């Protein structure tokens, strides 16, 4: 009886130790930034964080940017798909957008805007935001 009690206490103590010392508890200020796509009569925009899209409950959300360096030109593309399946894509040959992508991490929040009212157009604005509240 005593042995069993000791065993149980030991296990409980081990549990408390693990709880306190393994991976940090997820506290701190947290923002959820799922993929959203919107627009008005002159432009469209998309926003969302890479991690929130990847770990969303649905299997549709996706957001990302691509830097293409070819021998004759360079091209930046950003694209997003929201939970409803709506998509938006923008592209640009402006060198400054490629520089902006250099600031990306796996937890970045991406915001981009296009001058088109359709599902694709030229990029007019790309924002890469890195912040503690976006970390998983």
């Amino acid at each position, binding site marked *: 009886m005593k042995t069993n009690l000791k065993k*149980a206490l030991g296990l409980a103590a081990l549990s408390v130790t693990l709880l306190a010392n393994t991976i940090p508890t997820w506290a701190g200020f947290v923002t959820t930034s799922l993929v959203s796509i919107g627009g008005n009569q002159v432009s469209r925009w998309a926003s969302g964080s890479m991690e929130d899209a990847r770990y969303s409950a649905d299997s549709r959300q996706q957001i990302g940017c691509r830097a293409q360096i070819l021998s004759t030109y360079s091209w930046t593309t950003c694209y997003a798909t929201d939970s409803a399946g709506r998509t938006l894509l923008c592209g640009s040959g402006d060198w400054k957008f490629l*520089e902006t992508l250099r600031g990306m991490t796996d937890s970045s929040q991406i915001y981009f805007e296009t001058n088109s009212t359709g599902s694709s157009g030229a990029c007019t604005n790309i924002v890469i935001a890195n912040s503690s509240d976006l970390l998983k």
Partner: protein
Amino acid sequence: MNAKLHKLIGTAALGLALFSNSLPARAGLATRNEVYIDPSGTTAQGSLTGARYSADNGQYIGCDVYFDRRPNSGPWASAYCFAGDKTGRSTYCSSTDARFIDAVKGMTDSSHLYFRVSSTFTRVCSDLEVTNDSAYLK
């Protein structure tokens, strides 16, 4: 009976401790792109996560940036991209083009890479794509 109860409580507490600290559940759109190198070794593609977490232990893909300011050889900067697939095929290329170096600086732990070697003799990169996409996250 008491012993069983104590054991049960202990095990439940242990389980709870482990469960509460685990990583977030993995849902959402995911693409695992393992390394592919064409038979001639001219192009390679794959994601860092696809290579790292592949079932075999041969795949790798990545890019490095170098800056050398030694008096005798520098200053020069270059990007170097390399890949190996599960069949043992490997390829690499390098470039001193500032645009390629900038693209490599934009890589994350989950980037998808595509590169083309202009010539298997000179090993100069002619194309490089770096894609950072939520679907490539582990």
